[in-house]
């Protein structure tokens, strides 16, 4: 940003590149990581590395979008990952029972979505309408979903339909098809979020609940709808796990929650609500995916990986809090 004095006026010339990196500081880290890994490991900068990262994170992207919606309200949803797991398990159990076929897969998808909606609606009613703490409510639903998923399967992954397994190996122009589908979901959500009245209400609600109420927004409904939508997307993410992993994995929710929340926050969505976007979440997921891919390409021991990932989260979060926040206040 350059200040130019012309007679009595002060006009501000913005450097678009600098502005971009200030708005999306995680992108700077991504570039630094790609450069670092490319220099340090010849195995990193290959098409295969990026294909693996895209495929492996396709469902996490959708789950992270779900989490973004809730975090934008200033809340948190701890049940996203286990609802994802339960949806996948129930869909697989049905598809296993019903046998191979398109109709079976379609019904499996509907089951996954329905499970997500049920849990999301439950969270939404308790948080939005009954005013209960999101952390506690979603911790409860997290455990319920996890318990049911494990009880139904005895913690054994349920094999998915062969057609879905092989669909996971499908590529369009070198890009995993499942990742393309995830990006389509991302684009739909981004456009809807930006263009719809609901999206604007959600942002205002997250920024200032009282103001939103005085503006005539039905705040309870808006908050409940965010959790419900998050549930729906969690169900969809669960269906995508079947494509990526080839199974309905009941334990997948155990390990992915922190990755999902980490990606949202690293992308720059504020935990206080009111600021963020699904595009930022895409950046956060990309950062974590490339970090893991690079560390694996270098065969870094996993304990060292944990330390590095922790440091990167500190750096990324520090950047998003300080650089972006100062930029926002400077603009104000």
């Amino acid at each position, binding site marked *: *940003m*350059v200040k130019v004095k012309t007679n009595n006026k002060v006009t501000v010339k913005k*450097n678009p590149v*600098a502005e971009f*990196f*200030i708005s999306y*500081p995680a992108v*700077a*880290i991504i*570039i*630094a*990581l790609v450069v*670092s890994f490319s220099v*340090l*490991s010849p*195995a990193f900068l290959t098409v*295969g*590395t990026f*294909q*693996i990262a895209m*495929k*492996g994170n396709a469902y996490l992207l959708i789950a992270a979008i779900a989490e973004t919606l809730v975090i934008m309200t200033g809340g948190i949803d701890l049940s996203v990952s286990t609802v994802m797991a339960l949806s996948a398990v129930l869909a697989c159990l049905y598809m296993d029972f019903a046998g191979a076929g398109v109709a079976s897969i379609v019904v499996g998808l509907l089951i996954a979505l329905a499970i997500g909606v049920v849990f999301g609606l439950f969270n939404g009613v308790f948080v939005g309408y009954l005013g209960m703490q999101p952390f506690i409510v979603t911790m409860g639903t997290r455990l319920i979903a996890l318990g049911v998923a494990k009880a139904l399967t*005895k*913690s*054994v*992954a*349920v*094999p998915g339909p062969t057609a879905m*397994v092989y669909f*996971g*190996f499908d590529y369009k122009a070198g890009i995993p098809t499942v990742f393309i589908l995830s990006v389509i979901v991302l684009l739909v959500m981004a456009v809807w979020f930006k263009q719809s009245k609901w999206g604007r209400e959600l942002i205002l609600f997250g920024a200032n609940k009282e103001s939103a109420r005085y503006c005539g927004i039905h705040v309870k409904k808006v908050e409940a709808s965010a959790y419900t939508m998050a549930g729906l997307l969690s169900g969809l993410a669960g269906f995508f796990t079947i494509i*990526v*992993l*080839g*199974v309905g*994995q009941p*334990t*997948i929710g155990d*390990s*992915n929650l922190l990755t999902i929340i980490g990606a949202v926050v690293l992308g720059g969505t504020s935990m206080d609500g009111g600021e963020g976007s699904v595009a930022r979440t895409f950046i956060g997921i990309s950062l974590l995916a490339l970090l*893991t*891919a*690079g*560390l*694996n*390409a*270098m*065969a*870094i*021991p*996993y304990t*060292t990986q944990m*330390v*590095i990932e922790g*440091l990167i989260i500190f*750096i990324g979060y520090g*950047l998003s809090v*300080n*650089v972006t926040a*100062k930029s926002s206040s400077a603009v104000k």
Partner: protein
Amino acid sequence: MKKRVLAAALCAVMVLGVVGCSSSTTTEETTEAATETATEAATEVVEEATEAAGSASDLTIGISIDQLFDSRVATVMGLEDGLEAAGVTDIIELVADGDAQTQNDQVNQLINQGVDGLLICPVDLNTIETALIAADAAGIPVVLYDRDAPDSENVITAVSCGAYDDGYQGGEYIANVLAEMDLDSYVIADLKGPDSDDVGVQRSAGFNAAITEILGDKATVLTVETGAWDTATATANFQSTLQANPEICAVFCGTDSFIPGVETVLTDAGRMISVGEEGHVVITGINGSLEGYEAVVNGIADGTVVMDCPNTGIIAAEALLGYLVDGTTPERTIIVPSVFYTGDDIEANADSIWGVMDLSLSYQ
């Protein structure tokens, strides 16, 4: 503005530094420096020792480890010994830390790096299948070690310790000791591994088969869930089971790691009586870890099934190299037998028990 850009630049430098530093302390440089000297001296010997060494030394082998704990470290060290003895120096190891999806990504990464063969211990026997399909499609042979994926057609062999037989040996010992007591009924606790782990399932199945075979209807087996081999869960659940069933006279521990928890619970309940004394609760374990060995030596447990972890690793490595170098296709399943030791013979055989050996736990 300049400050903010500077801050961003500094952070970028830090990222470069973090990643760069980690690499310098880990794999290539250190390994190369260390192996250069050792390899120079050993090369001649190795070349003469094995005919396969000439071609095996050109191979890159990927090892996918489900999770690191004592017995797995022993097996992986066996894998390394087997590979290095044949002249393989290019070994890439990745640890999934118990996460099935992470393991699939890591196996795909190893395929992407162009490894010639894969040695995998699957986290989950079903989830690993997509990674095995990818390896098969890339023409990379896979040998599973320690844990089988029985339904998979995409592996050349699985080398493991024979979980069913291990469980049977533990059950057979308990049943024989109890049979000598000649009681009307016997209540036995089975601290079993998770259903998602074929090893846990098979050990429990083997144990139950032996009990039924020897004690018949007189025996009642109470299954105690232990989560994912979690000692805290095992201890808590066993405590509840013992409170509800104080007549428990024997405990089968699916792994030696459960023995200290069982000892604590029995001590709290005033039931911890040493082996050979009146009122002793019969306890057996499986593994061969140091804690299992010490429990038997100290008279807490009656015996433990000692797995041959190092040999399992060596045999798995040899099976893969045999396939790659000589084109030898091994049996679909290779069982490495375990040995049941009691307080009478465990100390005399300490040299052959991996948990007592001087294993350098160098894995991170």
